[in-house]
């Protein structure tokens, strides 16, 4: 590779490190001719497009990279990411399995495959693949993250919280994924203040992460006094709170407590109407406030 191209590649790599994918792409656009025969260059270009969420172009770029070097694990991995984001799970699996054929003991690739399988609904196999990655390196960050994601997908919030605490304790006390998962678990317990604190911490880690910022905003909104009357609905879910209310009303009616029945039923109906009408309006109103 010529010196100019080497400089451009180093600069692009730096831009990707500091989360400036568009600049990285601009720099890489200046490279042409025989320098395009370097798979690393295609990997950088694909990475920039993935960061910009231009997944169709990323997949096409990765394929160009593979025509230069069909055994580039980085490019195969990026192709799998792009195809998965496009919803083409079969193509993503083909790419990740090719990478795993070259590096079968690579914990990051194994975790990527496990998450892809989970996305396709193959939770059992996903768990086995994640266990294989854990056997190879139980302390790898990717393995812990994969275990968190799989626990969440299985609906096991407690296991997700346990792994998240491990992630925060052993790797990074400010890790956004760890805090988001702890926030989700706190919210499922009805502890919206605690959830809001975790979502805030996750959002502060990267204010450019729209999803984390949105979660933090919604976490704060749920701690607003307007939401207090509907906390039982949030805590127990609509099904359990309806059944509970119906059971109490049935009990009051059966024991002849007509006045209590009327008060309870009236309050409950008002709360239901409140829960349908107020939260959407409050969300709209409060989300206008600066986060």
């Amino acid at each position, binding site marked *: 590779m010529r010196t100019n191209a080497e400089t451009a590649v180093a600069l692009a790599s730096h831009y990707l490190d500091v989360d400036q994918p568009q600049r990285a792409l601009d720099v890489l656009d200046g490279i042409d001719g025989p320098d395009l025969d370097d798979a690393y260059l295609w990997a950088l270009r694909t990475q920039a497009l993935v960061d910009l969420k231009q997944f169709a172009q990323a997949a096409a770029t990765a394929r160009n990279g593979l025509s230069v070097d069909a055994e580039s694990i980085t490019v195969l991995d990026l192709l799998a990411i792009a195809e998965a984001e496009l919803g083409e*799970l079969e193509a993503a699996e083909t790419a990740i399995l090719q990478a795993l054929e070259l590096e079968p003991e690579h914990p990051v690739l194994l975790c990527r495959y496990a998450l892809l399988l*989970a996305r396709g609904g193959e939770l059992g196999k996903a768990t086995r693949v994640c266990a294989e990655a854990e056997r190879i390196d139980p302390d790898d960050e990717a393995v812990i993250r994969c275990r968190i994601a799989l626990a969440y997908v299985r609906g096991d919030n407690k296991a997700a919280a346990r792994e998240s605490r491990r992630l925060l304790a052993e790797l990074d006390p400010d890790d956004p994924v760890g805090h988001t998962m702890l926030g989700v678990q706190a919210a499922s317990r009805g502890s919206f203040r605690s959830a809001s604190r975790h979502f805030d911490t996750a959002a502060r880690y990267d204010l450019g992460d729209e999803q984390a910022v949105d979660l933090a905003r919604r976490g704060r909104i749920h701690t607003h006094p307007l939401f207090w009357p509907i906390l039982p609905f949030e805590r127990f879910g609509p099904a359990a709170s309806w059944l509970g209310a119906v059971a109490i009303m049935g009990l009051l009616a059966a024991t002849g407590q007509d006045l209590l029945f009327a008060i309870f039923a009236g309050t409950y109906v008002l709360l239901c109407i409140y829960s349908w009408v107020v939260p959407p309006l409050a969300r709209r109103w409060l989300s206008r406030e600066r986060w």
Partner: protein
Amino acid sequence: MNEQDARDDLFQPSLRGVARKPREEGNRPWRLGSQFYVAFFGGPLAVAAIAWFNAERLGMPSSARRWIPAIGVAGLVASVVAAVAIDTDLGGAQRLIVRIAGVAAFGLLYLLQRAPDRVYHAFNEGDEDELYDSLWGPGLAATFGLGILQAIILAAVLGAA
């Protein structure tokens, strides 16, 4: 199967023909919790119909989806049998039976859809309102349409009995 075979099996493709394209509004799943209202007011047939379309939107495999109509029909049969066994002409008691059957069917359908719903929620970007469609229209249609059908079936069976 020995350890090596089990390991090799891990690297066999499992996602042939599987695609999960981002869903547009009008074609997105419904919240599982909202299906409870359909079950409570519409009964097992109504909630099964909603769960069937939701399962399709969640990309559930047909092997899991085929349980949904079975649960709906089982709920209907259970409510008819219970109504005949109790042998009451009271409309309130019949409605209660249908509601209990609907809620029981909802419980099973919820368990069936829970993992795919979590997968959908975990791997798609956007807030709740962007991820899920409103169930108001389809829910009301199912509640009235299939709720009335269920009431007619119940009345016919009770009349014949």
